[in-house]
């Protein structure tokens, strides 16, 4: 492991520095099957998104897309910890969280390409991935709102006493918007089973979070304002995330109310498709690349006695799935123009007058 650059070296670009990998996480009581699942999920997200990026370069992915390359451990950790009927609320950077709930790759890829066989028939696009069937209750592209919406799902669970939990993912920059404050406060006041997960990747779009937040840990340092415990985890370590997720989900299910978790991480690429991310110092990028969650987890599993062959089988299977999803997407038809006029109302149509 590299030594991390000091605060001064990062300067204002990274007042928050990566915590050293906590090797004690290897000791966490996580069974082998779960760890292999965490590995597979991370690989799925990684390989899927690399492909999405290639397809963007080929002009096949239209519009915008926001990748989670480098942040996979968080979506994977939650994906593995959540129960099948729990609810995910994601953002525009939501491919990872969608795949982590078991949504098949084909429809997701087709949606990025704007095809009729897309998850949303091409109507939503990359930023709004949703699969109610898998508990993915939408991806939201305007900062903050979905934290409030997640509370509503949590309210249903509380009202119906189902033990379900709503999990909302968001970024560091999102902690500055009003809806963040309202949502977390409301969840605590109503004692709702909502888990708020801040993926602190150190940047809002192109601006360092240190420039625009007055506390070093934009979520964890604000938890006390809502009567919540301050929770900070290594977002590049799937085991650490899995354990934090499990605890928060358990608390919520038991009627213990909401949690706010901050997971530190780093995105490998730019903010969105068009951004080369050049505003970030090379040394910062380099340091974080050394902490790439997937090779790290690979090493962890080998250290725990998992066979290299088993891991490469997983990688091969995932690569094949990405391949076939690409084919499915590329082969998908362009949506029928009639789709423009459907789905405004529950009757299937869009008529607003007689």
């Amino acid at each position, binding site marked *: 492991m590299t030594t991390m650059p000091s605060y001064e070296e990062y300067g204002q670009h990274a007042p928050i520095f990566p915590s050293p990998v906590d090797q004690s996480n290897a000791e966490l009581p996580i069974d082998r099957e779960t760890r292999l699942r965490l590995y597979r999920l991370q690989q799925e997200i990684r390989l899927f998104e690399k492909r999405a990026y290639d397809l963007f370069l080929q002009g096949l992915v239209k519009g915008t897309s926001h990748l989670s390359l480098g942040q996979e451990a968080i979506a994977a950790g939650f994906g593995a910890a959540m129960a099948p009927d729990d609810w995910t609320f994601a953002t525009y950077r939501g491919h990872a969280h969608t795949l982590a709930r078991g949504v098949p790759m084909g429809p997701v890829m087709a949606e990025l390409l704007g095809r009729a066989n897309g998850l949303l028939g091409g109507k939503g696009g990359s930023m709004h991935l949703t699969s109610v069937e898998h508990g993915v209750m939408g991806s939201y592209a305007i900062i903050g709102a979905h934290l409030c919406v997640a509370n509503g799902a949590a309210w249903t669970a509380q009202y119906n006493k189902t033990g379900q939990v709503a999990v909302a993912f968001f970024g560091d920059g999102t902690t500055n918007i009003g809806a963040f404050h309202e949502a977390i406060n*409301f969840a605590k006041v109503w004692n709702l089973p909502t888990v708020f997960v801040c993926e602190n990747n150190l940047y809002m779009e192109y601006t360092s979070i240190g420039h625009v937040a007055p506390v070093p840990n934009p979520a964890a340092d604000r938890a006390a304002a809502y009567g919540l415990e301050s929770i900070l985890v290594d977002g590049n370590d799937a085991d650490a995330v899995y354990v934090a997720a499990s605890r928060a989900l358990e608390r919520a299910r038991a009627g213990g109310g909401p949690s706010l978790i901050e997971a530190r991480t780093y995105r490998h690429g730019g903010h969105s498709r068009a951004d080369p991310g050049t505003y970030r110092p090379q040394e910062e990028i380099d340091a974080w690349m050394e902490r790439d969650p997937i090779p790290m987890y690979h090493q962890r599993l080998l250290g725990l006695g998992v066979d290299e062959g088993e891991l490469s089988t997983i990688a091969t299977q995932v690569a094949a799935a990405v391949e076939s999803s690409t084919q499915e997407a590329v082969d998908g038809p362009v949506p029928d123009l009639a789709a423009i006029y459907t789905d405004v109302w529950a009757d299937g149509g869009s008529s607003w007058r*007689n």
Partner: protein
Amino acid sequence: MAELTYRDAVSVGIAQELANDPRVVFLGEDVAGAGGVFKATTGLLERFGPERVRDAPISEQAILGAAMGAAMTGLRPIAEIMFSDFLAVCWDIVANEIAKSRYMTAGQMAFPLVVRTANGGGSRFGAQHSQSVENWAMAVPGLKVVAPSTAEDTIGLLAAAVRDPDPVIFFEHKSCYPMKFDVTVGNGDIVDELGVAKVVRPGKDVTIVALALMVHRAMEAAERLAADGIDAEVIDVRCLVPLDARTILESVAKTSRLYTVEENPRLCGWGAEIASIVAEEAFWDLDGPVVRITTPHVPLPAADALEDATIPSVDRIVETVRRSASQ
């Protein structure tokens, strides 16, 4: 027949829906323990308990977010936004989230929810507590928009809104709260239908289309116009989305003259929409200009004398119709 205020009709209507369907829940600021700042929700907490009638912090985004998330997961929430002016603090949830999410997800989710809010002027509350903003909602695809003018319509349209599978913004008029109305009370629930305008006064010379408080003014104006020999047909639109354009077009086909009476400020109101529909689809029926009677395009002043002269009055309706219909 029972006599009921519009204010009481609100709590009667909510109670009816809470009793009808266990999925119905109600939240807002000061709505439970306090019975609402307009006293339009008194007794609901006592009758239905704190799990179904729930007070919220001053967090309109959180309130409507909760309503939206609850609706998509199977509840049928009614949320109160105390004054319609405050829709501005949670407009993102209304216009960008609630309105669009069904479409964006290709119909995967439904949002059977109602946002009730006190709309309109006449209380001398000034520019930030008196607006008529039903046109804000009408302008956003994906929202149904209702604004009752009577107690019975309040109960019936609220029921229709709660039972509707789509999101409805329900504008109650503050100045109607104290008004008393006869309500037909039968054995069953009072349930009306969205998207149906009412010809509240048949007439043959001119068509006057109005909404909420303005319906009462239009009716009074029609009586005065009758004395002048102008027989006005008055239509209570009741519901802006879905819009009962047919009833309006049929009326114009008969009278050949259209007047809209709107409380919202002049530009881009629902009156402009209806005027435009008529100017396109009933152009050949018209015998003269389509005239909109509106609040001028200014914020509402607070002083009673000023407020009264800003919102369309019976006098203004009478004079406008009289002057223009004789051309």
